[in-house]
């Protein structure tokens, strides 16, 4: 199945100079199958109209397409369509939660929103392996409210250090925000243990699911999280679209950050009433074509099967890790057994930027830099790493092309 579906991704036929393309940067953004690309043409040539307004036929078709996306996502990650909110990206989804809590902390949203309020004496807990998108908004919330920011450290093996979990997440903790899968280390975190502790102290759980939803079966209801965020473009979908998932009773009392048209029930010159979720958080014109395209992507993923995708990528991860282990001078960050096909490493004597440049000359696309996780890199004593990350369309040949080129890097830069 996996060798056949590769043909669905036209970009993989691109030649980079004299080499075929080995695309190992899906952790940054995934490539798109032809059916997702075609959905844009189909939507704009047959169904385009403004959604949730207008009584004409096209408006109904566009609205149906828009709402069908929520249903597809709910089928993928659990819950009901009303629990699926469209945002610009996952970063915005996380900010909607952090800024909503900030507004509640400053008296917005009335009595119902007071359950979210944080202030001096309260704590917000994150982890040392967070992407900046799930760290900076919480720092801002702490700064705005006087709450304290705390974090779970990371072990040498690239896993969360849970030895002080009970003292870091304690009775003062109001929000516990953590990533499901590290975008650098590939480590899958023990969500059940973390959620159990959050429930003991009554903290809200916010899950960054950007690196899990595209690569493994995920059900937010089963995981028992309160909010979760992920992006469409990492899951075969278009850029410009993210998803915020939340428990309905929380979403309906969280103060919205973006206000205006399409999200109100009654507006007078003195004040306004807001709709329930999802419209509550979807002010203004929405990215309807992107939702339609993402719906196609979600259906594609469901058809292949997330467990199949996970197993396929786990095999590729083994090829990458075993191959890297045979190349002298390469240090992989972390060694977690429970992982996806994301591998970050340091090349002794060669800066990540130079590694990436050499690999590109051999047709291999990887990410270099701090991958928006500076604290995690600092934890491992490096400023930048090279990261190879797989997806369902990658095969063993991609990994071998990468390993062959990586084996030449230190020789090229004269550090062997």
């Amino acid at each position, binding site marked *: 199945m996996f060798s056949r579906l590769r043909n669905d991704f036209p970009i993989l036929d691109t030649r980079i100079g004299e080499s075929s393309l080995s695309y190992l940067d899906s952790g940054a953004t995934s490539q798109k199958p032809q059916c997702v690309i075609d959905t844009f043409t189909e939507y704009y040539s047959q169904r385009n109209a403004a959604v949730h307004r207008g009584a004409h036929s096209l408006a109904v078709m566009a609205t149906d397409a828009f709402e069908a996306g929520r249903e597809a996502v709910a089928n993928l990650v659990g819950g009901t369509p009303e629990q699926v909110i469209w945002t610009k990206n996952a970063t915005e989804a996380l900010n909607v939660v952090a800024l909503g809590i900030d507004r509640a902390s400053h008296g917005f949203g009335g009595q119902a929103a007071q359950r979210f309020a944080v202030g001096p004496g309260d704590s917000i807990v994150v982890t040392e392996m967070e992407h900046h998108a799930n760290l900076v908004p919480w720092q801002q919330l702490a700064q705005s409210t006087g709450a304290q920011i705390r974090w779970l450290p990371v072990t040498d093996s690239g896993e969360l250090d849970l030895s002080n979990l009970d003292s870091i997440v304690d009775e003062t903790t109001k929000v516990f925000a953590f990533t499901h899968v590290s975008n650098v280390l590939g480590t899958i975190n023990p969500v059940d243990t973390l959620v159990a502790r959050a429930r003991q102290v009554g903290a809200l759980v916010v899950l960054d699911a950007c690196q899990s939803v595209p690569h493994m079966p995920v059900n937010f209801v089963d995981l028992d999280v309160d909010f979760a965020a992920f992006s469409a473009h990492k899951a075969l979908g278009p850029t410009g679209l993210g998803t915020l998932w939340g428990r309905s009773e929380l979403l309906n009392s969280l103060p919205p950050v973006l206000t205006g048209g399409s999200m109100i029930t009654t507006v007078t010159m003195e004040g306004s009433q807001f709709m329930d979720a999802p419209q509550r958080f979807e002010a203004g014109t929405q990215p309807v074509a992107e939702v339609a395209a993402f719906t196609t992507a979600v259906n594609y993923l469901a058809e292949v099967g997330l467990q199949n995708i996970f197993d396929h990528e786990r095999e590729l991860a083994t090829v990458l890790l075993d191959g890297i282990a045979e190349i002298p001078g390469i240090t992989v960050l972390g060694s977690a057994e429970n992982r996806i096909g994301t591998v970050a490493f340091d090349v002794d004597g060669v800066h990540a930027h130079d590694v990436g*440049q050499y690999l590109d*000359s051999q047709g291999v696309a990887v990410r270099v830099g701090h991958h928006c996780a500076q604290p995690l890199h600092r934890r491992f004593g490096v400023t930048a790493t090279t990261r190879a990350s797989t997806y369902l369309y990658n095969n063993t040949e991609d990994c071998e092309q990468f390993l062959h080129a990586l084996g030449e890097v230190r020789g090229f830069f004269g550090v062997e």
Partner: protein
Amino acid sequence: MSTQMQQLYQQVILDHSRERAGNSDLLGDSAAGAHGSSHQINPTCGDEIELETEIGEDGGIAVRWTGDGCSISMASASVLTELAAENSVEGMLDIEAKFHELMHSRGTMAGDEEILGDAAVFSGVSKFPARIKCALLSWVAFKDALNQAQTSLKE
């Protein structure tokens, strides 16, 4: 190996990235005379440089720096240090302007070795938009620090 890669990673660049001129302890607060310092970061990759410049009584320029970054950024700082030792303030400002122009030429210019010296070998970098900032990092720090040194000279 592509020609572009060979143009990018000229031997001079690889040599300078390993044997780095001017990469030494900074004077910090103990600096005397007309001096300036600048700290620059490339936010996309985390590369950084801290660079100090001094203008001596004879008009000569001294450069010291510490930094962490790719071969292009480190070699560029090294080449800059050597050029500063051989040139006047006016000469270095001219070189800085021409180097800046070369880096933004998208591969359409050949570096003038008469003026740029070893810095001319960076002409291949201009074909790689993602790497232009690497080559310019130390020059941005140098221009800032030199400007401070000139200001303190006038005071």
